[in-house]
């Protein structure tokens, strides 16, 4: 299963990438939404893990763009964010995210969400 991880914090990116690799996923990383969108157009990812607070285009806007494009709209997007308020969850789902999880990441919970889209 090929995952795209969009996350700007390199420390957190490395941690999550490593943990997902250990569980047998193929992981590609992008440190901005712009890079992420570009990668999605090139590679048929199975699931996108999208951080919300990003420099430049934020995760919500990136999701909206992906969902608006017929080529990418079918790819499930899981919002992975430190914005943990109910309003943030609502905003994420409204922008088109298929699921939502907060940081600190509970790895088992995230794997369960990813596996739903297998």
């Amino acid at each position, binding site marked *: 299963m090929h995952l795209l991880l969009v996350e*700007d914090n390199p420390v*957190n990116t490395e*941690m999550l990438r490593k943990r997902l690799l*250990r569980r047998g996923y193929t992981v590609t990383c992008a440190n901005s939404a712009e890079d992420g969108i570009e990668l999605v157009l090139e590679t048929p990812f199975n699931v996108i893990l999208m951080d919300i607070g990003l420099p430049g285009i934020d995760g919500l806007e990136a999701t909206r763009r992906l969902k608006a494009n017929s080529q990418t709209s079918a790819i499930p997007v899981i919002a992975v964010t430190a914005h*943990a308020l109910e309003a943030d969850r609502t905003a994420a789902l409204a922008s088109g995210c298929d699921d939502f999880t907060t940081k*600190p990441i509970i*790895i088992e919970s995230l794997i369960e969400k990813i596996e739903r889209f297998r």
Partner: protein
Amino acid sequence: MLCLFGLIGIGLVVWRLLFGINFQEKTLKDQEALRLTQECGGYVSNALLCADLVLSGGNTYLANATYGYVEKSLECLSRLRTYSNAQYKLVDPIFESDLKLITRTIQLSTTVSTGNSQGVPAPKDQQELYLVATERLVDMFGDTEEKIELISQDNRKEQEVIWKQFFILTGVVTIGFGVIVFASWRMQTSTLAVPIKQLADKTRLAIDEDELGPKPEFTFQSPITEIDDLRSHFSLFVERIYENKQELEETVEKRTFELSNALDIAIKANDTKTTFLANMSHELRTPLNAIIGYSELCLEELEDIGDFSNVEEIATYIGHVRQSGLNLLYQINDVLDISKIESGNIDLAPQNLVLKQFLEDILPEAHILAERKQNRLIVNLPDEAISIRVDPGKLRQVLINIIGNACKFTENGEVIIEASFEPKPRQQWVNFNISDSGIGISDEDIEGIFSPYEQRSSSRKLREEGTGLGLAISQRLSRLLGGNISVKSKLGSGSTFTVSLPIVVDHLTS
């Protein structure tokens, strides 16, 4: 005037009335006089009858009767004379001659009767004379009666005239009085009732707010000074009330505006606080994510490998855990600092510092901060002799925070640290200027840059660790140290933050 007229009128009426009564009295006297004249005439007639009988041979008894009648007629005449006044002057001469004639007649009668009683008839000439005299007397009484009758009639006429005058006068006085009463009523209406009614109306309008303008208008001009005064005073009073009302309205409007502003500020502050809490949560979760994540990763690795052959990798992971833990600590420290400052629970520990040495001690940390984004650090240290009394920990916190910000928002640029001196009226001040060639701050963001919980717009969004409390803490600490902090910046061309402090301990000779 009314009273004067009334008095004169009543006086005239009484005067006429008295005249009327007087004349009534006169009329009564006329009647009495007439009656006496008639009575007198009666006596005289009887006397003449008796005298005739005496002449035709009557005795002494008849002569006495004649004499008696004559006596009575004389008595009547003398009573009639008592009524004599101006109007009876006409009667008087007649009475004079009458008296003589009566006396003569009595003498004749006596003579005749005496002659008769002696059997000697009175001489013929005397008898004739007696007859002429008596006839004459009868005529006279008749004349007198007529005259008195005429006078009585005149008196009655005059009395009628007087009564007529009395009634006319009474009428005139009554009408005049009525006219005066009406005129004074009219005058009272125009001088009192109209002004009072207008004043009452305006007062009612004044009570029913907003119905009376600032200048009430009156259509009357009273000749009474007091009423005119009342009018002008009332106008002033209303004007004053209107002014006060205007003033009050303005004050209320101003206060409402101020309250509304205060409410806006309060709402904004509350919003900022809510945003701050959301961001706090976010900023704490990010390092926690790394701490928890890497710790778990370490455990996973260790479990898989079973030995420590992969030491270098594990050391890197643990290094991340440490750094994230530290970041979390800084965040928590900032939050604690600001809450301590805001509740006034911060203690200062001032010391005498040599400025140059103090700044040199900061430099290693400043270099580390600058190198993170390949910035060049330029430092202009002050003269060795300059010393200052200040809490070194707090000053260091402020300067490191500002240097840290400068390094954070500048990449491959310059960060300049320098100290300059500024003489002020009471004492020398030192300015620590920290300039950078970084992204700068927009005018919009600069406004609330020192406010706690204030979040900067996306143009300067913090991507590194930080609560957004650093500058708020720096400003409050600078103030606690007796100084202040200021900023000059332009979006895209760097920023200069200046921390100014008074030099409490002056130049020391080294």
